[in-house]
């Protein structure tokens, strides 16, 4: 995924779309994606920076290394996912993640989810939750919910390995950069600074 920070307006439609699509516990302010709203610089030379963020689906994955149960795994497409049946909720992954991309979907949230979403729930047991790049949509040829909702084309999704894809071209254009590259995590989300 590439984030074009030049176009983000901070509408948070991505957060809403993700919440609805993935039934995240918004009642406890837990989201799989966020939009950071920051001020940068020293007065009078200041500006507002909007930085949408989610799981970076790192190639060198600290959360996967820390997970003792193998609940965290990487699919063939390079998406980092959690197998809810295996997760014991030890939080080692939350401690290891350098991008604040994980949170606990605890027992209370599971109950509340039923109240809010009725029968059609996707989190049947407590576990640590995170972004899946909406792989259930991607496998049907659709874009992740946050991407298809974004009205300003800030979020651009595709196959990084396909040299013809827009994400590949942007990611290798020299303009895009990863967050905290010094940690050596090789994120699969790139940012074009505003």
């Amino acid at each position, binding site marked *: 995924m590439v984030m074009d920070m030049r176009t983000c307006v901070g509408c948070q439609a991505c957060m809403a779309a993700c919440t609805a699509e993935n039934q995240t516990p918004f009642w406890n302010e837990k989201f799989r994606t966020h939009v*950071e709203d*920051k001020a940068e610089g020293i007065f009078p030379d200041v500006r507002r920076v909007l*930085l949408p*963020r989610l799981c970076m689906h790192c190639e060198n994955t*600290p959360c996967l*290394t*820390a*997970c*003792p*149960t*193998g*609940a965290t795994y990487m699919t063939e497409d390079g998406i980092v996912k959690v197998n809810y049946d*295996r*997760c*014991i*909720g*030890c*939080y*080692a992954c*939350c*401690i*290891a*993640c*350098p*991008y*604040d991309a994980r949170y*606990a979907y*605890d*027992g209370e949230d599971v109950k509340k989810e039923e109240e809010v979403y009725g029968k059609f729930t996707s989190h049947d*047991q*407590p*576990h*640590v939750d995170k972004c899946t790049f909406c792989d259930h949509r991607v496998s049907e040829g659709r874009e992740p919910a946050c991407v298809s909702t974004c009205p300003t084309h800030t979020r651009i999704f595709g196959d990084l390995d396909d040299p013809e894809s827009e994400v590949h071209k942007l990611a290798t254009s020299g303009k895009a950069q990863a*967050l*905290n590259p010094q*940690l050596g*995590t090789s994120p699969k989300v790139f940012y074009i600074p505003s």
Partner: protein
Amino acid sequence: MTFVHQEVWHWQIATYLFLGGLGGATFAISALIHLFEGCDRKMLSIAVMSSIGFLVLGTIFLLADMLQPLKAIYALTNPSSWIFWGVIFINFYFIAAIAYVIPLLEVWPKLLPIIKKIPTGILSLLERFNNLAALVGSAAGFLVAIYTGLLISAAPAISFWNTPALPLLFVISGFSTGAAFLLLLSTFSNNEESWKIAAKLEELDAILIVTELIILGAYFNFALFLPTGARESAQVLFHSPVFIIGFFILGLIVPLAIETHGIFFADHTKKSRSLLMAASIFVLVGGFLLRYYVLKAGLYQFPW
């Protein structure tokens, strides 16, 4: 750049880390006393039984903090995770500790009927390999104690934790709490032999505290001169009166002073005994406070 306090691991995990270090080190030191100083079966059986108790209690705290403790067995899946190794070390420890302590328990008449139920073949085997169990046990105890530090140092974004100094600090502090606990036990004994052991433990604990001070110095020197979350964390600790007074002054400096006084000037009177008890309790409370505050001062450094 944003620094955010970790809100994931709280006092339950601090208690687990404390009890893990204490339990591991108590057994390791007991086993070494057995090997090098001879075996006071009564003292050592109390010490090892308590160390097993500490670890059982610690494991309960860990499980209680999990979302799905009943699935904990799955933790034996991924060898690249420190928790995987923690489970191995703790089980290795339990097996060694139980194998070691069973022959020792024969000195307690009330426990004899239970021990007699164990087949004599197994019992004589345990008796025969008691020294080996002590040797293996000291390694297992060490591994459990150092694991508590390795576990939390695997956090790339929490630069205060992600240092080689943290496992060292935790293992030395763990052994210091273990020595202090054994010292506390030995102050209850009136037997001449256990006073000799107490004097050795006093020396050991003083050496461990000095080592801990050196590591702390190196650790904070590293943290304070690094423009990262580590510096923020160190400053959080410097501004926590309970950390400075409770851990640093009462948990390290005061016990070191009492023990140094004990080593060089004191004869073993009732007065020095109560001072030693105070020093041991201070070290134990300090050991808990260290882990509690290190967890509390864990700051993520996020790139936004």
